[in-house]
């Protein structure tokens, strides 16, 4: 996937201070540190957005309660009824949309776990040089995934899909999601 927009700004000064101290330097340790950094950045970004989304939900709930209060005033004009009906539909759509934040948090949690697991794995040279150990790692990570989207993407990548094929799959999934955003219901 194209991550060029995430690359560090070249105009920012670089300093040797940012280099990792050369104590017991190994390429594996540097990979592990980089993975841990990615994991920490993701956690930091998620914590920040948690605060913002909480505030957004409070504002949303307040707006809807104000709308409901308007509806209970007893004004039976058809115009007001129409507006309230539109508000109800918008509210239902917003409730569905808000839930994708929860899904995002969960999926990024799985990515963070994967990065941490990989960081530990690459530091163990004996393990990381064995094909069977890699297979075990993939098997562990596969069990982590809960949603259809995660499982499909995992399978696609493990089966050797290119970044372009993955991007096409994601675009297709997004289109499907737009037409049917809610999940299935089954009564036992």
């Amino acid at each position, binding site marked *: 996937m194209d991550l060029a927009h995430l690359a560090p700004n070249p105009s920012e000064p670089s300093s040797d201070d940012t280099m990792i101290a050369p104590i017991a330097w190994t390429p594996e340790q540097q990979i592990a540190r980089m993975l841990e950094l990615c994991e920490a950045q993701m956690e930091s970004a998620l914590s920040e957005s948690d605060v913002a989304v909480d505030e957004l939900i409070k504002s949303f709930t307040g707006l809807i309660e104000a709308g409901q209060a308007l509806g209970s005033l007893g004004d039976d004009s058809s115009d007001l009824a129409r507006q309230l009906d539109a508000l109800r539909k918008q509210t239902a759509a917003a409730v569905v949309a808000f839930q994708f934040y929860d899904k995002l948090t969960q999926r990024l949690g799985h990515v963070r776990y994967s990065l941490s697991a990989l960081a530990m794995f690459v530091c163990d040279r004996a393990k990381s040089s064995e094909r069977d150990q890699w297979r075990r790692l993939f098997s562990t990570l596969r069990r982590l995934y*809960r949603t259809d989207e995660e499982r499909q993407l995992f399978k696609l990548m493990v089966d050797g899909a290119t970044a372009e094929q993955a991007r096409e799959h994601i675009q297709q999934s997004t289109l499907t999601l737009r037409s049917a955003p809610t999940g299935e219901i089954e009564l036992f």
Partner: protein
Amino acid sequence: MSGSASHRSRVILAVDDSASMRQMVRFTLESAGYKVVQATDGVEALDYARQSAVDLVLTDVNMPRMDGITLVRELRGLNSYKFTPMLVLTTESGQDTKQRGKQAGATGWIVKPFSPEQLLSTIARVL
């Protein structure tokens, strides 16, 4: 969504470790006239259910301390919850997990994200 007088005495225990999900569930159910009590995981939910009666349990699966499937199994072991409807609301869509939920005693399985209208009609069916 408007409140319904017939729902006012019904209490729903909503269990989820995500604050935003709890808010969406609470908002949806209260708008329809249900009384909602919330718990952040299975342990908290079980403690509450042992002390107070609820008419329906709506629980997530993956939570710290006690997951939703264990919660359903534990509740089914209590005399007062043998016949209480218990719906699982989760991002988990795999057949294996669904089957485990069914075996634990869940009444139904709802995959997130839920539509308020569908959630309310499902609850009305099982209550």
